[in-house]
């Protein structure tokens, strides 16, 4: 009887998991396998593919533009982290009370996260446009500058604008995460600290910060994942330009797939495999490091 029930159970489990498994194989596994397969070929999307062995990977090793985009991706990750984490933490501490005003702030600060990055990207594009954007308009009318600043043309400036956009969207989200961790800290700790004469600043550094420690790995992971997926904002703001100086991995690959001449799909597939490997590697590395840290904290 038991075994019958178990196999019946098993059947039910199988069917409940089935839709997920089907979709997952079609939309995650198959593309990966496809990419791996085509990464060994030269393919233009039209005529049948020709086998080139590891030729694409060799080409990738020497492709300085590709590695430039990889570097950009890492650069964006670091920039995003050093801006977004402190600000969201600070905001979380500031709005952490039950007043109506704080509730208002919390709602508004989270609002950007529900908008589309691509759409907001367009708005930023107009705002920072060289000859008729409002940013330059204000700066010029107030006399701060005489010649329009080309925000999106200068690679260094453009990168900051991209990070600005990214921060605009994400700070509210991270703030909420920090808030949820802060709110778990027992009030008694703060009360006894106040009784002992500790000011707000001391309370922050000695109580708040250490006790939300396990939120940092979570958020860092999200910043990393988010930055490695950067596409919409870059495509809309700069298109990766000038040249490829602000491009990221995802955009470079997209252009090779959809926007290039000749037989580049095979090479694009190889880069896709590489991009996945790089992202996963960074993730694993990070996971390994923080796992060790977890052990220490406990």
């Amino acid at each position, binding site marked *: 009887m038991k075994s019958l029930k178990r196999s019946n159970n098993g059947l039910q489990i199988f069917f409940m998991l089935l839709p997920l498994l089907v979709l997952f194989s079609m939309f995650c596994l198959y593309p990966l396998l496809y990419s791996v397969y085509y990464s060994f070929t030269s393919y233009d999307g*039209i005529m049948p593919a020709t086998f080139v062995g590891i030729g694409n990977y060799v080409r990738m090793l020497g492709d300085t533009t590709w590695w430039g985009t990889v570097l950009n991706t890492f650069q964006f990750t670091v920039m995003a982290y050093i801006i977004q984490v402190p600000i969201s933490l600070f905001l979380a501490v500031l709005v952490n009370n039950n007043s109506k005003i704080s509730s208002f702030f919390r709602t508004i600060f989270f609002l950007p996260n529900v908008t589309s990055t691509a759409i907001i990207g367009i708005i930023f594009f107009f705002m920072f446009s060289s000859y008729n954007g409002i940013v330059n308009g204000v700066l010029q009318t107030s006399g701060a500058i*005489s*010649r*329009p600043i080309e925000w999106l043309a200068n690679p260094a400036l453009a990168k900051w604008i991209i990070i600005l956009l990214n921060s605009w969207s994400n700070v509210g989200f991270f703030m909420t995460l920090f808030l949820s961790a802060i709110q778990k800290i027992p009030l008694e700790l703060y009360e006894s600290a106040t009784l002992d004469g500790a000011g707000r600043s001391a309370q922050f550094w000695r109580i708040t910060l250490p006790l939300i420690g396990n939120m940092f790995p979570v958020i860092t992971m999200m910043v990393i994942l988010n930055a490695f997926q950067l596409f919409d904002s870059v495509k809309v703001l700069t298109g990766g330009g*000038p040249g*490829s100086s602000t491009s990221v991995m995802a955009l470079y690959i997209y252009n090779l797939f959809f*926007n290039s001449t000749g037989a*580049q799909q095979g090479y694009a597939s190889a880069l896709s495999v590489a991009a996945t490997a790089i992202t996963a590697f960074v993730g694993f590395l990070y996971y390994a490091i923080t796992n060790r840290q977890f052990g220490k904290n406990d």
Partner: protein
Amino acid sequence: MLKYNSKCAIAGVMAILMLGGILAGCGNDSSKGSNPANSEGSSSADGDAKTADVVTLKMWIRASSKENNQTITIDEFNESQDQIKVEYEVYGDNYSEVLKLALSSGEVPDVFEVAGLDAGSVRSFIKAGYMAPLEDYYDDEYAGQFNPSAFTQYAADGHVYIIPKEMRYQRLYYNKTLFERSGLDPDTPPSTLEEMMKFAKIISEAGEGEFYGFGLPIKSDSTWERNVDNIAILSGTTGPWAFDYSTGQFDFAKQKPILEYFREMFNAGVIMPGSESLDIEMTRANFATNKIGMYIDGNWMVNGYNNELEAAKDLNYDTALIPVFEGQQRAKDYLSLDSGHAIYANSEHKEEAFTVIKYVLDNVYEAPARKDSTSIAPSLSLNLANNDRINSQEAVQNMKGVTGLLQEQNQLTSFPVIPSQMLTLEGDSRESVYPILIIGNSDMDCELQKLSATYNKALDVAKTDGTLTQSDLTPDGFDYMTR
């Protein structure tokens, strides 16, 4: 509870949308395109069309504005007879992306324009069998009216696949209003590059930030072919993409003087700012609104400014030949024939499709004027008889912008093979490197040498697998001055 009510409401809305969606989403439901002013076409069930009297065709057009000379011509065609109805869609800058995807997915209209595509892609489309041969649909008498290259440009294994509808070449566009405001003679465009630099500086100074001397759409890929290549060709130094037909190799270093010229212009601040994010459409809009004094564009924009762009109604401009460096002898000019219509090989109405194509070929330069007598346009047709007839009309001779257009038309010759368009590059293309050379300070010699190496390496591959032959690369008796 409020929550419950809102949940019911949401459920209700979802149910309605679900129903609507199932009806709509499962099929081919687009907005109805029977109104000629609506530029989104809709498809028809091919099966039905056979039994009905009216044949409905889908057509894709590449143009700068929703209403253009082709759409007017097609409207006229639709109204003039009852057997064929054409539903068209107009595409802008991303047309090549769209077309490539459509072809590889089989979602192709009966008639589609091949414009703004590189020849390599077009050739692979022909090889893949996406296009139907056209020579069955016209006779020798008709063919005789045309410039012969109309039927050789897109010929392969004895068949003609595309008939170019347009001769395309570049001219210098200059804004007469801005010339006047800067104290320059509006009837004297610059005759050398040095003069153009001087004029640009004068205009920019007079503009004080409101308008600038020169427009260079650094963001558009087509800029380098239209500005740098054209000057190089006219100077007899290289062909398109710095391919030197006299040596059979790419030599980007030969374009260095021209690049240095534009870099100097950029550093002098006479190029419209934001040019790094300006593309060709923006540049045109800025030219039309008197913000740019001079820029280089294609001959078809004369019609564009006069008849199609709303913003250009009051534009006072003219065209002139593209200047070269002082003392340089002018070589033959650069003619492209890269726009024409093809019929999809799997179309079920090929003969009707060709009727449409023929109508466009014969009428596209006159139809706008028939609709609105102020919309005179010069003819750029390869149908030589039509061309001469239209262009000798007084109305055309007197229209805005036509001066440079009609000058030295006998100097225009095309290159039969453009090697750069048949290569698979393993490295940066010219289009990603040149923008940085203009706006930055990198070492030009080094970058240009790298480009030559990349392109020549791909060239060797193409030679080995037979895509390009030696006679393609070094034609007998080739001379930039006399080709």
